[in-house]
């Protein structure tokens, strides 16, 4: 192989140094060189979004970028979601997809989770149209999208609940302070009979906070 070059990718917090041909696609570097096969490939034209990852916080299609272009980047893939500060056992988005039956064959799911994460980082309380727009670069052949939208809404509610409970200490993105504060609990919790106060249950659970995480 000609002209290999050394690049560094920080994926899910771990730094990897690898030698790649300049033409090697980022998705192949992730899947084949680093054996993280959660990120999928569904097309050859950048249309399906199965390969969506977050590069420096931005959702990108990793089949449309050379690995060398991502040299030095911080990358998040589905494998890293459970370790994010807002995750307990699972990330609220992962919980949402399970609770709302947002997946069937699961092939589009990692890309959908990434698109959902990018959206909620930017807009913690998106309406349905905004969610549909945010995932419109990701094709799903199985679900008809309705439950995927509900899954992302579930995660938004869950994150808002936690933010409310912790008085804003936990946000979807470290440093993003524009999530709804405790005052918004009533508006965002989504329960029809919401008492307007914090959910007692939530106090008993041990959510990591920004402080404890570092």
């Amino acid at each position: 192989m000609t002209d290999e070059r050394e690049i560094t990718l920080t994926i899910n917090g771990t730094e990897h140094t690898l030698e790649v041909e300049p033409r090697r696609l980022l998705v192949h570097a992730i899947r084949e060189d680093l054996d993280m096969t959660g990120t999928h490939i569904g097309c050859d034209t950048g249309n399906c979004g199965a390969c969506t990852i977050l590069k420096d916080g931005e959702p990108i299609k990793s089949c449309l970028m050379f690995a060398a272009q991502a040299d030095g980047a911080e990358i998040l893939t589905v494998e890293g979601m459970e370790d994010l500060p807002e995750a307990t056992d699972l990330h609220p988005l992962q919980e949402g997809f399970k609770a709302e039956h947002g997946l069937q064959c699961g092939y589009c799911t990692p890309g959908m989770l990434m698109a959902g994460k990018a959206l909620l980082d930017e807009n913690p309380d998106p309406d349905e149209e905004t969610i549909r727009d945010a995932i419109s670069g990701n094709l799903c052949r199985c679900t008809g999208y309705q439950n995927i939208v509900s899954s992302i809404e579930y995660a938004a509610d869950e994150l808002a609940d936690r933010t409310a409970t912790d008085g804003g200490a936990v946000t979807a993105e470290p440093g993003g302070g524009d999530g709804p504060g405790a005052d918004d609990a009533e508006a965002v919790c989504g329960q029809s009979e919401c008492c307007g106060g914090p959910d007692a249950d939530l106090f008993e659970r041990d959510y990591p906070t920004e402080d404890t995480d570092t």
Partner: protein
Amino acid sequence: MSSDHENAPEADTEYQHAEDDGPQPEKHCGHGRGGMGEEVSRKEDKRFITGRGNYVDDIKKPDMLHCEIVRSPHAHARVKDIDGSRAEAMDDVVAVLTAEDLLEHDLATMPTLMDDTQDVLVNEKVKFQSQEVAAVIATDRYTAKDGAEKVEVDYEVLDPVVDAQDALDAEAPLIRDELDDQEDNHIFDWETGDKDATEAVFDAADVTIEEDMNYQRLHPAPIETCGAVADWDPGMDKMTVHMTSQAPHAHRTLFSQVSGIPEHKVRIVSPDVGGGFGNKVPIYPGYVVAAAASFVLEQPVKWVEERSENIQSTGFARDYDMTGELAATEDGVIEGVKVDVLANHGAYNAAAQPTKFPAGFFNIFTGSYDIEAAYGSLTAAFTNTAPGGVAYRCSFRVTEAVYLIERLVNVLADELDVDPAEIRRRNFIPSDAFPYESATGWNYDSGDYEKALDKALEMADYEHYREEQQRRIENDADKLLGIGISSFTEIVGAGPGEQCDIAGIEMFDSADIRVNPTGNAVLRIGVQTQGQGHETTFAQIVAEELGMDVDNISVEHGDTDTEPYGLGTYGSRSTPVAGAATAVAARKVRDKAKSIAANELEAAEEDIEWDRESGEFHVAGAPDRSITITEIAAGAYMNHPGGEEPGLEATNYYDPPEMTYPFGSYIVVVEVDRETGEVDFEKFVAVDDCGNRINPMIIEGQIHGGLAQGIATAMLEEVTYDDNGNVTGGDFMNYLLPTANEIPNFDTGHTVTPSPHHPIGAKGVGESPTVGSPPAIVNAVVDAMNHAGVSHVEMPMTPDVVWAALDDAGLAHKPAQNVEFEFDGASGSADD
């Protein structure tokens, strides 16, 4: 159609959970049993949401090689020479394979599911664009691609023919000249029903109507393409193929037949599969090439398609050009139906149907209606297009049949000026007429069509929209309203072995349950999931039938070395066939459990009863003297009754006595923009009846997904060709899958009419929405323009197609040339 049947048990009438409209079962919370009717969350989800799925392309083996296929740029051409030397000279290219190499191993051709013979790699003549011509095997994906570009093929280009009608012309180029007795491009003619009786009905009828309609060529297009990792083990003389397979056992038998490797030395593993929809039922050349290369090179070989290869060369669906006619009384009672079809099968007859049904179950075209006489004829033709005709979320052409009849009924309603809901009501098979034998010989198990329609009408607020539609017509509104109905009947659960087979193997299915000493169980099934949720729903059947907690049951599928033989998952057959096998096997375990219970409780076996509610066994008349399945499991291994075999397990191979007939009514309300031809969904109601329901959450998910595919069919998708046979709709830039922006929210509802012959009264549901929704959508769009005389619009109804229909009917609004902005003084600046 029915068959004599010994092993068909009566439907268990003690089990009647989810009554329609009744209170729904509690959501399974992890403490209950998770039996029938509960919304158990899916066991398979965790690995998929955490990136731990294991799809074919995720498999990596030591020394694994990669295969890239060289494909023909021409649709019809003679291959004069293939020169692979420049590729072979490359450092990391290991081999270049052509038909010549495969001939040495007797692997040059493979049988299709319709018993045609397809070249694995082109032997003499290319018959469709993207056909497999050569294969390059290299140490990595990129080099294999580089190598493929260096393979030089010398073609003599021939005239292609892509249209089925043109192909039947006497002057048309002969596509299959390698076949001795093939003198034209005609494949077969097929007939169904009674021609004379039907003609007599038509001659005497008050009214007849006729409509031409095309069901365009579609592709199932699962988001995961097809692929395989073949691994020949020279030490064991064993071939393992991990492949995207909806029917692993059938593929094992076919692989063995093609390769000559004895079947017990072939293992097919279908790991996680990223959607199938019928695309992964046939065998494709890529699988065979990977296996051949692994055999020759004695290393694992991976082949994974790109999207364009998937759409351009693997099994397409539909492509039926249909003319339908109805004969009716002046009151709109349908007396006869006639249909004539021209089917484009592509370059090989590679449809996926039971072999006795060359046109699949197309003769279900009498639909939900009690029609005295029916006649259908069909001609199939070869063309220079990719081979196919697979059952895309469909039981073998039922989709085309339902589209035909549901459109015709609407055309008749227009002709007689009867409301489309009313005309359906006048013709439904009455609910007390089941079991019902149709004019084409199908034996419908159960149905209550009017109930489903009534429920859908109510959910859709039908009358309101009819009034609104009228109002808009009167006001010459910019957006017309259209309301479409489809009251479809499905035919699924193939099928009775006497009638149904795949490549000669009867379409039974199987289940094997082994209860462990610690009281949990493993269920192995002959079907395979590509997202349908078998790992959950099949465990629920066992939970229901054995009184075990659903969390204590693992479901295994997709590995031919461990699973019992089955025919796979497609045509909504898993629940009707393997689900039945699972229930029967569980009941066999229950029977054995009774003798162990008797032993443990020191009672006579005849006195042991099983209580479905608690899931426990007890002594008749003494409910306190009870024992759980967990305790029985321990007894089976640690204290088994003398004179009996130890252990607690059972297997069932289930040959269904009949097909099952799910049904439903869908109502679609659309807005049609008279300026742009765009169609917006205002309301989308789907009422389904799939008999007894195993997991309502999963059923609803299946309905959503299938409706989205129905919308894709009606509005967007078509595999198109130009006159030279170039695929012009062969990737995701041109073959348009709907995104979240094109799919509306759906209102789903259900009724429950159990199947009388299925052990748990279930019918199967996966394909209903894909089958039932396209006619509802087309009926809605036509309905919006019907007052101006529009009787049909062809699919896919893209804005230009709809706009042309509006324009022809004098309904189009042309955009104003000079748009003037009017400002409302009160609302402030122009920025508002």
